[in-house]
């Protein structure tokens, strides 16, 4: 499963269980859309850290970070450690 698909799967499982991953638009604003609130953001960050090995410091998160699936993927790409393979 590619990274975007993984992210979408996590988001729907955790925050929008009525939807399937392919129904989720990659540019949908998860925060103004009410799907991810401040608690949800903590869950998301914890998952990103464990799933992709990125370490996220609270101070790195600006108001526009992690609002859409696309921006989550971009955030991970910028910070992930070199692939194990």
């Amino acid at each position, binding site marked *: 499963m590619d990274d975007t698909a993984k992210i979408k799967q996590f988001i729907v499982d955790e925050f929008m269980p009525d939807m399937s991953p392919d129904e989720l*638009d990659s540019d*949908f604003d998860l925060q*103004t859309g*009410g799907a991810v609130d401040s608690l949800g953001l903590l869950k998301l960050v914890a998952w990103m850290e464990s799933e992709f090995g990125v370490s996220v410091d609270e101070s790195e998160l600006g108001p526009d970070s992690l609002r859409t699936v696309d921006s989550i993927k971009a955030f991970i790409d910028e910070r992930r450690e070199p692939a194990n393979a």
Partner: protein
Amino acid sequence: MSESLADHFAQQAERQPEAPALIWDGRAISYGELQEMASRAHAELEALGLPADRPVGLQARKSPEAIALILACLKAQRPFLLPSIELAPETLAKLFGQAGAGQVVSPADGPDGAVGPGEVAPDEATEAQWPPAGGVGDIAFMLTTSGSTGLPKIVPLSPGAIHHFTDWAASQFEIGPGTKVLNYAPLNFDLCLLDIWTTLKAGGCVVLVDQAKATHGGYLADLIADNEVDVVQSVPMLYRLLIDATRESGGRFPSVKQVITTGDKIPATSLAQLPDLFPNARVFNVYGCTETNDSMMHEFDLSGGEVPAKVPIGHPLPDVDARVEDEDGAPVEGAGTGELLVWTPFQTRGYLDAARNEGTFVSRADDGQGERTYYRTGDIVRRHEDGLLTLEGRTDFYVKGGGVRVSTQVVEQAIEEHPDVVEVAVIAVPDEMAGSKLHAVVLPQPDSGFNGMTVRKHLVGRLARTEMPGSIQIVTEPLPKTSTGKIDRKKIAPPQDRSRVAG
């Protein structure tokens, strides 16, 4: 004795200029400093050339500068509207328009900034309810609360009402010079009348929680412990976060002497752990709303390790009048069930838009008091033999989640605006963190390709974040109906856990 908050604050600044007034971002701001900041804000405010006969619109997120700006408005005796910054910009613009605000201002964005225009301007097309019938002399704060239709309702509060409330709160919770009070709530919540305004009037120190970190349990635990906080007031979520954050470390908060839970029903599991977390504290459940401020209170006895099955709202505060009425408006005397109506010395004189008072603020003859205006809470209560009140349900569509009152009717109406929606019902389902979460069930036009994403995208800009449904179920059959053909929300099934709902 002056009723003005600004005067009392100024007195404290004179008496103890070095004493800490606010703790923010790890540093203390003294009474003297805050007084200077307020004076500067006052000068900057006046330099904006605001009209003298209109209220000020405040677009402000919690910060020392925002508090200084509010103090400046109080000092200038300029009524101000302080709505939630979570609202959509269009809604904010309309609210400022309705309040008749001359201009919207925002506080300095830091020690080097200045008071300036807000991002939003008052909407000219919205009918201004200013000046209101009943005059403007008696309005200090204006807060907002959710309505079941249209815009949130603007609630004006008089200096007298605030004076009475802050005096009661200081006395009840022993807030005086040096008392450290946590402020967890956002700046526009009426809880701040205790956390911030009672404390500053009484010469205490407000330990401000940064809204951006309001869900970081570790930060919150450290803030309370490091500052040796005396008084904590919050919706149940804070206590859940503290319990989770200290689970492994076994941390406790021995400095805290008063714990107040309010806004939502506190889950039994959280309540049971409060004596461990706060071994030296009295624990209270306080019931109230923006229109009346606090009206009822119950002190828990958790020493025996038992929590009550139903969390009581308790007894009326001193000088508060509480009535229980049956469906015909007749008083229920002694033990029984009915709607709770309250009169408090701290209540609003009515919504700024007086047309919205109808049916909510009602006149009742009271033995020995003549006629009084009571507020219909919409809560159904049971009065027990000893006079204790417990909450039994609602009479209307309001639910509380995260301390914010949301109207399920407003959410339904917003969803219904989508052309492909045939029927919709929104219900509240219990949530341990938020109190309640909203679940929407939608019957769309067949073959419209309508799904959860359609609803969510449609609602962006129509509803505030706190009003968004947490879960959405798309169905293909009409919703259950009552015998009179209305949607029967009681028959709507709550969402399945974690599984894709068929429909």
